[in-house]
């Protein structure tokens, strides 16, 4: 990391939900597939054998992380494409059976805007409310189902406040009603155990760069027998279901990365959870009028999300940046626009809390010293911004 602003200040990266560095081991795994083993996996000659084999290995690695079979994993160019494919493909395939989608009001834009697009195409969408912690109620999922419902899409863990949804219960409701269940697990991978069978998930989206894998890589789990329409038409790659020459190095990186972060989830939870708790307790203890958003324990182990009413979140971010601390006001995608996040709004967070929110998301690369540094730097910055604004 090379902060252009202040080379003498260490960078403390606390925005792992926005993206992560590709782990050096992952880069190392990818490298031969750019040059040495560059063959098109569809080609017949032997130099493509390595590419084909590497894709098969990666498919197995992803499957192992989700508890499914390798045949059920389809590689995409990211979480967004996976979400688009799942939602558009499934509703299109079941168009004759109905035109209603049940989703939550706190989904990522990749789900929200895909559903919004479908509304312009004659679909109707129920955006379920959440409670103040950001939780969807499975009973409300059930109540929202109509004879027209062909898809339920509720995220596994929220990208802003980190709330983990009762996916298993929602999956059971969907299964009971014979409706397909999609979950956006982009933020969940590596932070919690995932088992698509136990959780009764039919479609699951994930994205490589959220767990130290490369950007522009993702996968969609599609339960055997479920047949969403294709999103990307063309060549016969991915068993004819996702066309385009395979991004072999990217796929290798995705596989290596998911294997890395799922090898010891309990250990990760202990390490990162301890740091996160230290951060939360430090902030709550040292900063007056600080409000912890999201669920106290049904939340991503690496997520801390606060409101500091009386200041502006973007101003705080820039101050933190000058101190070498990288954080977010919410989802990476909505930074730069001042509209309050739809997630906080759905949770009933008041505007003055919304505009003053700060998301800190940790990773295994963070240290106790870094957290201590943040706890030293943050209180005076907040005091200063509040002082500039107090009247």
């Amino acid at each position, binding site marked *: 990391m090379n902060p252009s602003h202040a080379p003498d200040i260490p960078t403390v990266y606390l925005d792992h939900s926005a993206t992560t560095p590709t782990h050096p081991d992952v880069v190392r795994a990818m490298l031969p597939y750019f040059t040495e083993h560059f063959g098109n996996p569809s080609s017949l000659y032997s130099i493509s054998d390595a590419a084909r084999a590497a894709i098969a290995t990666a498919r197995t690695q992803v499957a192992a992380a989700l508890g499914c079979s390798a045949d059920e994993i389809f590689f995409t160019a990211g979480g967004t494409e996976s979400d688009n494919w799942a939602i558009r493909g499934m509703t299109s395939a079941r168009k004759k059976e109905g035109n209603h989608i049940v989703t939550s009001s706190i989904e990522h834009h990749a789900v929200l805007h895909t559903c919004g697009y479908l509304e312009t195409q004659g679909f109707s969408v129920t955006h379920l409310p959440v409670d103040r912690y950001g939780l969807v109620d499975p009973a409300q999922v059930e109540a929202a189902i109509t004879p027209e419902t062909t898809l339920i899409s509720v995220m596994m863990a929220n990208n802003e406040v980190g709330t983990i949804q009762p996916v298993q219960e929602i999956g059971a409701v969907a299964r009971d009603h014979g409706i397909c269940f999609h979950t956006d697990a982009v933020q969940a991978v590596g932070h919690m155990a995932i088992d698509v069978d136990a959780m009764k998930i039919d479609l699951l989206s994930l994205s490589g760069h959220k767990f130290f894998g490369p950007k522009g890589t993702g996968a969609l789990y599609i339960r055997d027998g479920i047949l969403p329409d294709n999103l990307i038409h063309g060549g016969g790659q991915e068993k004819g279901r996702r066309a385009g020459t395979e991004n072999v190095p990217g796929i290798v990186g995705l596989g290596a990365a998911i294997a890395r972060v799922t090898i010891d989830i309990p250990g990760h939870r202990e390490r990162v959870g301890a740091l996160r708790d230290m951060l939360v307790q430090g902030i709550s203890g040292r900063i007056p009028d600080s409000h912890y958003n999201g669920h106290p324990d049904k939340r991503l182990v690496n997520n801390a999300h606060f409101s500091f009413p009386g200041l502006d979140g*973007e101003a705080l971010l820039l101050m933190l940046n*000058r101190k070498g601390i990288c954080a977010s006001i919410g989802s990476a995608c909505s930074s730069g*626009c*001042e509209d309050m996040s739809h997630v906080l709004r759905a949770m009933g967070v008041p505007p003055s809390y919304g505009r003053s929110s700060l998301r800190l998301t940790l990773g295994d690369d963070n240290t106790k010293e870094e957290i201590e540094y943040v706890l030293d730097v943050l209180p005076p910055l907040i005091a200063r911004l509040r002082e*500039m604004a107090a009247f």
Partner: protein
Amino acid sequence: MYNETVMDHFEHPRNIGEMEDPTVVVEVGSGECGDRTKLFLKIEDDVIVDVSFKTLGCAAAIASSSMATEMIKEKTLKEAWDLTNRDVVEALGGLPEQKIHCSVLAEDAIREAINIYRKGQGFEPW
């Protein structure tokens, strides 16, 4: 995202804080983004002899207030009135497109303060 002039005015805002014995005080807010600014002017012989402000807002809002106060200090009320948010943005060396509206707050506050002062003096507002 912001140039160094903006960052400098954001990190080291000029004329920040309350003022003792101001001639006028106004508080303005922007519905659009929830920014708020409080402006203090000390006026003598139609000249702004001192100015200070407080702002709840993003870096663009704070820097604009800071720059605007610098630009009206020791200016006549007429000169201060003529200052537009474009002048402020220009003096700052530009703002990102979606942040231009944050600079309006300072202009609004100055004009409202001047008119309050004028009304207090028995003049027509401009």
